[in-house]
């Protein structure tokens, strides 16, 4: 039976790759998409999410718009130099045909989880605002969600948006605190793993050798993203594979190596957004998070390439 997921996203170039990868994987059934601010403004990412479900005939999948800001802090430093102001590499794509749901993302998450107890996996690949809001709206979902597999955080490795923090967590550290301490099973697919999952020029060539709506869109929107990584990390066209790695975990957790520890959040000040593993339970006793620290990185990339090009 396919794993039912709600995909929470701020498309976003790697979100685009992740969602198309998920939609093309029979192991997963995307029962809903919820959008959040992050890589671009909330209004922009909502339209991009609609666009992405329509791309290859999945327009029946409901899309609900979520938070425009962090639960406590307003949206800051939106990454227009990474993903473009339109979240689509500055390609200004046409408006989607479909419509967003009438209800907000947090309500959609609560209703879907209550209607499918024990069956829904949340896969958030942007700031965790919608997940935190859903938790506060209906605390019971902590017992009814199968797993939360999130792209975010940096436990044992430096941050990207600041020396300590990864961008998704940094944009809403308070939501992250809610999510990591809620008692459900969380798997953190953060920079510890994603900086080892390197999609290089050869991989991109293979992807773009194919011809389908997903790879054709990626071909258009990735130049901005690839040149950002080259500028910052000197990767020469390669990228660290963030959001798609979370989807890969949802498909096959065995691809990843994991350390378990509860995650404590720093929510204020200079170190805001740091995900702190409390291995010895010195500070907290709540359920440990599965922290991805590596894995079969070649096989992860091969899986992504295979699904995108089929």
């Amino acid at each position, binding site marked *: 039976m396919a794993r039912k997921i709600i995909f929470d996203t701020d498309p976003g170039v790697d979100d685009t790759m992740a969602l198309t990868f998920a939609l093309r994987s029979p192991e997963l059934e995307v029962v809903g998409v919820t959008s959040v601010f992050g890589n671009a403004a909330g209004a922009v990412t909502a339209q991009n999410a609609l666009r992405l479900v329509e791309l290859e005939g999945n327009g029946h999948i409901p899309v609900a718009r979520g938070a425009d800001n962090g639960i406590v802090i307003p949206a800051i430093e939106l990454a227009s130099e990474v993903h473009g102001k339109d979240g689509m590499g500055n390609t200004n794509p046409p408006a989607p045909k479909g419509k967003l749901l009438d209800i907000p993302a*947090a309500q959609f998450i609560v209703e879907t989880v209550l209607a499918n107890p024990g069956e829904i996996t949340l896969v958030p690949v942007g700031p965790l605002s919608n997940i935190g809001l859903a938790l*506060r709206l209906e605390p019971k979902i902590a017992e009814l969600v199968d797993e939360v597999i999130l792209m975010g955080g940096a436990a044992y490795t430096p941050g990207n948006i600041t020396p300590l923090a990864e961008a998704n967590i940094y944009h809403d550290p308070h939501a992250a605190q809610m999510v990591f301490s809620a008692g459900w099973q969380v798997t953190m697919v953060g920079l510890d793993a994603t900086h080892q999952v390197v999609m290089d020029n050869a991989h991109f060539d293979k992807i773009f050798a194919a011809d389908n709506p997903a790879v054709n869109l990626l071909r258009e929107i990735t130049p901005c993203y690839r040149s950002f990584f080259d500028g910052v990390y000197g990767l020469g066209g390669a990228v660290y594979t963030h959001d798609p790695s979370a989807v890969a975990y949802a498909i096959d957790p065995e691809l990843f190596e994991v350390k378990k520890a509860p995650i404590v959040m720093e*929510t204020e000040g200079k170190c805001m957004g740091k995900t702190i593993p409390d291995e010895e339970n010195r500070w907290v006793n709540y359920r440990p998070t599965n922290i991805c620290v590596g894995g079969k990185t070649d096989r992860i990339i091969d899986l992504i390439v295979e699904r995108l090009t089929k």
Partner: protein
Amino acid sequence: MKRIWIDTDTASDDAVAILMALRWPDEEIVVEGISTVSGNVSVEECSRNALYTVELCGKQVPVYEGAGKPLIREPVFGYFFHGPDGMGGMNYPDAKQKIEENHAVNAFIECIQSNPNDITLVTLGPLTNIALALGIAPDLAEKIPMCYVMGGAAATLGNITPTAEFNIYVDPEAAKMVFHSGMPLTMVGWELCRGDANLDEEDIKSVMDIGTEYAKFSIDCNRQAVQTNREWLGEPMLPLPDPITMAIALDPSICTRKGMYYVTVDVQGEATRGMTIVDERGVLEKDANVTVCWEIDIPRWKEALYKTLR
């Protein structure tokens, strides 16, 4: 005619404020909904007390139960001030009316979305529900013409701590978010609710002499407050912050001096947690976001209360 929504952690003085709104003689006041929040007492007890108050006044108002705890802080309660049931230990019987099925946050969002720019919000407790609603429905802030907040201490004289008033202290992150949300806000701080603004012995006697069940109720449920106020704060008689806020919401001319400033809330400090920082001189050169009440007409405030008890 004025339409209002009351968000409340219903304990003794909240109950009197709700009563004032339900029995205001000068203008038709339609209370569209009452939402309860964890604060003075647990949210379940707040709901119970709100339902009793509504029934006592012989009115039909839906009561919705909201957040059971602050956004990320551990709950802090005020039983020591309001009594073991929040109502001075009066142990009133359960009302026949029950709380509505809908979560307070959803109900509030729906009410405002259906009635944009028509409903005044009056908050008498921690701002948890409001922060959640504004986060879930990002366009809500511009649809609320004014929010009267019982909370804060613009002159920095706190009650629960030297620097903070209780409502803001209990959920400082929610307060910070709400203060910066763009929703028009009038802050009625704790400093307005001390000294001569309190009901002294003569005032309490006048109230009892009114002889109605409403007059008796308003004094009885506050009997713990009178005692604790004297023992803990060394202050005279009966402070009534929520009724003062409601009086100003119902008749804004009761506030005789006010100003609009940049106001923020400290969420980082230990000694200054929940401090409401009012930039009176404008030294930070940031946009003003809150109207701060500096003075009230004390005889007119007390008459506003008395006329609802007759």
